[in-house]
């Protein structure tokens, strides 16, 4: 299965023992090695590496671990790390969703004199002083997935919410032929990711599209379903659903189905539940369409490789953008995992067997 663009453009990222250690986990790593295609520098600015010798120690401060995306992300990082066990030790700390705890976690990693700290920040502001401290201690820092304020970190990588939003907005506009009434769903109230996606999407929706209500549904299926049930009562005509996460899209569609309404076009990400729902319902709902942009859960692998590259003295782009996968009604069968739970995010390097083991 070819996911990530054109093979001829592939540059294999040769970072240390990644390939040598890949015997056991060959298929996963072989796929992971195509990932390089999906990473592009976002700036000309380069981050200078710090050459370290001997066995390295890389810490990962995970902001929290309470959802399946994070679980898949961490699992892929662990697989990558175990394939490189001769090269570096991988230490994981969990912030449990607590901004303060994550700062302490990072301080602990600094005290343990690790060589690099990767992190997904609970708060892009709160971790700034800790990262500055790490910088002074000569530690390479690689925040990823969610941006961090300031410049006192070595290199950042993640998807571009604004670009994602532009795609979602354009596609929703197309699916509705530029005309209709829509409702929308965001994640946690006030989060910068949802705001970025919406900023990108909004200008792409034509003048014929009216947003009836844009609600925060916490990236939770049940919350979206409850809100959608209210919106259905209020608005006799809803022609489309904008959502930056497909859990909310499918929750909203389930409410429509329960209310006996014809299903409508939706946007979202690579949540397996929506693909399964679409597959089951599309025959009875000719107007049900979807256009999705993934949030790749293999970002952590790139973060690890970036850290290793920096620690071998090489320079890397200060900011790298991860290119997501686009999924729609034409190609979804390639990604759908009918035997796996709804909660799986399908843009992953994990094989079905690995996912089955993880989700059991």
């Amino acid at each position, binding site marked *: 299965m070819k996911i990530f663009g054109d093979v001829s453009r592939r540059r294999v990222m040769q970072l240390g023992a990644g390939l040598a250690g890949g015997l056991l986990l060959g298929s996963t790593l072989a796929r992971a090695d195509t990932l390089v295609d999906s990473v592009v520098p976002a700036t000309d600015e380069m981050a200078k590496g710090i050459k370290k010798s001997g066995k390295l120690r890389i810490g990962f401060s995970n902001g929290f671990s309470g959802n399946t995306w994070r679980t*898949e992300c961490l699992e892929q990082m662990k697989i990558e790390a175990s394939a490189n066990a001769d090269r570096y030790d991988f230490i994981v700390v969990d912030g449990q969703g607590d901004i303060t705890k994550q700062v302490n976690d990072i301080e602990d990693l600094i005290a343990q004199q690790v060589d690099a700290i990767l992190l997904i920040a609970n708060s892009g502001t709160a971790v700034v002083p800790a990262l500055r401290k790490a910088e002074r201690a000569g530690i390479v820092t690689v925040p990823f997935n969610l941006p961090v304020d300031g410049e006192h970190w070595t290199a950042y990588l993640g998807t571009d919410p604004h670009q994602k939003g532009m795609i979602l907005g354009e596609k929703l506009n197309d699916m509705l032929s530029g005309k209709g009434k829509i409702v929308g769903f965001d994640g946690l109230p006030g989060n910068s990711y949802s705001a970025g996606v919406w900023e990108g999407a909004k200008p792409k929706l034509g003048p014929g599209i009216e947003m009836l209500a844009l609600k925060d549904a916490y990236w939770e299926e049940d919350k979206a*379903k*409850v*809100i959608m*049930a*209210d919106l259905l009562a209020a*608005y006799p005509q809803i022609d489309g659903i904008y959502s930056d996460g497909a859990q909310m899209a499918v929750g909203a569609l389930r409410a429509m189905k329960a209310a006996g309404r014809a299903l409508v076009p939706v946007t979202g990400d690579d949540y397996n539940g929506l693909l399964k729902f679409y597959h089951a319902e599309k025959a009875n709902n000719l107007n049900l369409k979807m256009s999705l942009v993934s949030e790749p859960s293999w970002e952590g692998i790139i973060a690890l490789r970036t850290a290793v590259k920096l620690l071998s003295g090489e320079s890397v782009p200060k900011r790298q953008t991860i290119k997501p996968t686009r999924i729609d009604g034409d190609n979804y069968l390639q990604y759908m995992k009918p035997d796996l*739970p709804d*909660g799986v995010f399908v843009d992953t390097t994990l094989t079905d067997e690995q996912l089955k083991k993880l989700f059991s």
Partner: protein
Amino acid sequence: MKFTLFSLCRRYPIWVAVLLLYAVASLVSPAMLNPDQVLNIVRVTAFLGMVATGQTIVLLTGGIDLSVAGVVTLVNILSTGLMLGDNGNIFVAMLACVAVAAIVGVTNGVLVAYFRIAPIIATLAMNSILFGVALVYTGGAPHGAAAPAFNTIAQGDILGFPASGVCWLVLSIAVAMLMRKTVFGRWIYAVGANARAAAMMGVPVRLVVVAAYTLSSMLAMCGGLLVTAYIGNPSLGIGNSFMMTSVVAVVVGGTALSGGVGGVVTTIAGALFITELNSFTNIAQASTGAQFVIQGVLIAASVVVYRLLARRPRA
């Protein structure tokens, strides 16, 4: 007593508030009057209502149960994980949920009654444990799904009325009867009003407290099962919102946090009020921030109103 609007307001303030809010909401959005929307609100209120009914019992004893959030989450994870979308597994899954809820409730009660741990700490700790267990049990990647037959308790109807609403009202009225008409109910009020005096009168205070927490846990389990049946999927974040809203529904209903004053029937109205408010703010396009502010203001206002009402002598 004369049956005037004023006396109605004084005797049943929360019911008046429920109707008033509905009237205001209908003026802003006539869609609220749609019978389907009325039934939808009842269907959705059932989840919170079930949990809040249990919370009422604990608040009446002068305690608080913050572990309801963890119970809802764990029940959701456990039931979907054991059902695996198969009707044949419903019984086993429910049995496991009952067992877990019973253990949680009894433990909460014992911690509060026998080890004299402050209820807010004991149940907060329990909540943390339950969420941790859910994480360990799933490894962060929950699997399974609710069985189709099971889903009908939240998605189906009984004679055109939402089945979840029927479950909630029947159970809540049963609990209300338990509180009003039985010795056990009087013990609950006595313990909440003055535990020492109750003990001197021969009320088995500790056992009553254990029973209260157990009932709360069981009802939170029922709420968890209903919300699971509504969505059909496991979700680690599903219970979070119940911790505070269950307390809010009870307090808005007029039950005092200090214990001994209030009742289950007004909590039914309290839960309706909160859900109605959410529904109204959804339809009225209020932002999440505005929604939080409005909720906060109404909680504070309701407490003030109840205090004022309590001060006035009865006509």
